[in-house]
């Protein structure tokens, strides 16, 4: 699917956070990177329909405002940066809620099967009947990732999905996202702080800084020492391994933030 943003702007209580964002993305993994408070989460929320920005968001040549609500809900899903809840629900029920738009009074066979499938391929079947609040941080994150995948979205928006995940889960998550994005022709946008993951798995990188898009393009064209220095304020060593994947090694901070 094609996604296009034209002059997206957003302010929280007249405090501008996004200024005239423009981009075009098509059917692949885009990593959204940038320092804290750059506006990554805000941009994702605007694309997810959680916030209503000025400007227009175009999906497959159609403005989202003209799309049918039903269609829109079905086609995109969003994973928040921190999904905290004190709800007293089992993991199974939490996953069902990922399909809340189509649930009727009695839960259908299809929906039960969808939950069972997502539990299985994410390897969390044994958590199914546990209370969501009795899980570890990483387990909880896996459940919410599963919830965002259950609708088979065409547009997948994930805000720091690796939060709380161990190395194995991080790696497998990205392998999996890469696979489904390719197979299903999805557009996946992931806000990330791990530049090495971004360099390794993203087809496209968008760098945000102070509510604007600083630069965008392929990992090798965007992740340069110059960009990293001006956006993050650090010196980094960038090398290319034998598979052609970039490795970014942070060296030192150019201008200190901490005053210790």
């Amino acid at each position, binding site marked *: 699917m094609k996604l296009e943003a034209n002059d997206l702007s957003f302010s929280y209580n007249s405090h501008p956070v996004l200024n005239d964002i423009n981009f075009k993305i098509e059917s692949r993994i885009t990593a959204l990177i940038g320092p804290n408070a750059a506006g990554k989460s805000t941009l994702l929320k605007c694309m997810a329909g959680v916030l209503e920005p000025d400007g227009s968001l175009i999906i497959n040549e159609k403005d989202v405002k003209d799309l049918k609500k039903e269609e829109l809900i079905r086609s995109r899903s969003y994973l*928040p940066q921190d999904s905290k809840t004190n709800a007293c629900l089992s993991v199974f029920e939490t996953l069902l809620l990922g399909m*809340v738009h189509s649930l009727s009074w009695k839960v259908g066979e299809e929906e039960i099967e969808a939950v069972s499938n997502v539990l299985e391929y994410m390897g969390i079947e044994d958590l*199914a009947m546990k209370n969501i609040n009795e899980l570890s941080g990483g387990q909880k994150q896996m459940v919410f990732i599963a919830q965002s995948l259950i609708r088979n979205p065409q547009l997948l928006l994930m805000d720091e999905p690796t939060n709380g995940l161990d190395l194995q889960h991080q790696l497998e998550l990205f392998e999996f996202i890469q696979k489904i994005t390719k197979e299903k022709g999805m557009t996946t946008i992931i806000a990330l702080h791990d530049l090495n993951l971004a360099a390794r798995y993203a087809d496209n990188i968008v760098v945000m800084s102070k509510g604007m898009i600083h630069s965008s393009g392929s990992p090798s064209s965007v992740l340069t020492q110059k960009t990293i220095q001006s956006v993050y304020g650090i010196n980094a060593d960038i090398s290319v391994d034998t598979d052609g994947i970039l490795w970014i090694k942070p060296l030192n901070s150019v201008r200190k933030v901490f005053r210790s």
Partner: protein
Amino acid sequence: MELPNKEAYESLIRRKILFFILFISAAFLAFLLDIAVGSSGLSLYEVFSTIVFPASSDPTSSVIVWNFRLPKALMAVFIGASLAIAGAEVQTILDNPLASPYTLGISAAAGFGAAATMVLGLTLTSFAGNVLVSINAFIFSFVCFFVIYFIAKVKSASKELIILTGVALLFLFQALVSLLQYIATDDQLQNIVFWLFGSLENSSWSTVTICLLILLIFIPLLAIDFWKLTALRLGDEKAKSLGIDVEKLRLKVLICVSVLTASAVCFAGTIGFVGLVPPHIARMLVGEDQRYFVPLSALLGSLFLSLASIGGKICCHKGVFPIGIATSLIGVPFFLSLIIMKRSGSF
């Protein structure tokens, strides 16, 4: 293909239905007992036969049951259900387990309306006086509701704001009630205090009908949004991204909750506890899938109020024991024992 998780989910659902059946039986039994217990005792069999075969039953017990006991017992059931449903939904839309229908200040406003009528010199014993007290209580609970609704509406239904407005109004109306108590005569003061404790003494077939109608209208209105309300528990942002119009949903539920609370409070005064604790117990037993959570809360609310009514009658033979006090005296030990017995915390 056999899915192990499907099995597990189905047994989870069966367990929830089992709790439902268990408590529907308990509530029904308590309801019959509530009719049987009183200054002239009836056996459960007599109660049952008088209700089922009114023609062939003893005329005295028929009058006792149909004119006095049945309306009160039904009121206990309906008011218990109304307050518990209102409590469950207030806790849901405000994402706050400590909230109750009274957090919104509606009951305090109703109390002020009632107290104002009494202090203005209308006696509680006359029929017109009673009706006026209820009507005035209703009017003031709606004044309170409209203020909350209006503020919520302009401020995009933020839950913090709803709670703060509710609590502010609660204090305002409580202060006004205190003022009325201060200037009231001794008789009026006693009436006000009695009303504030809550009681089912003013039940009649017309109040029963009104309460039942309100339940019949508002339960389905809430039920069509049960899945959305369950999803709201995952947070506003998540709910919005799932395609739920959070603001609209919250305002709609606010209306339902206000009417349910107002109808209960206007006819029976401020009965505490029933709006707060039954939803907690329901949550501990079946979780927050609203399809089970809300009906079970309602059943528990009815059960508690019936038990309180029975307890009140047993403890206090001649006079009338304020049911609001009995609910807390019976409910709190039960609730505490549940908390202590329950090993893994679910709220």
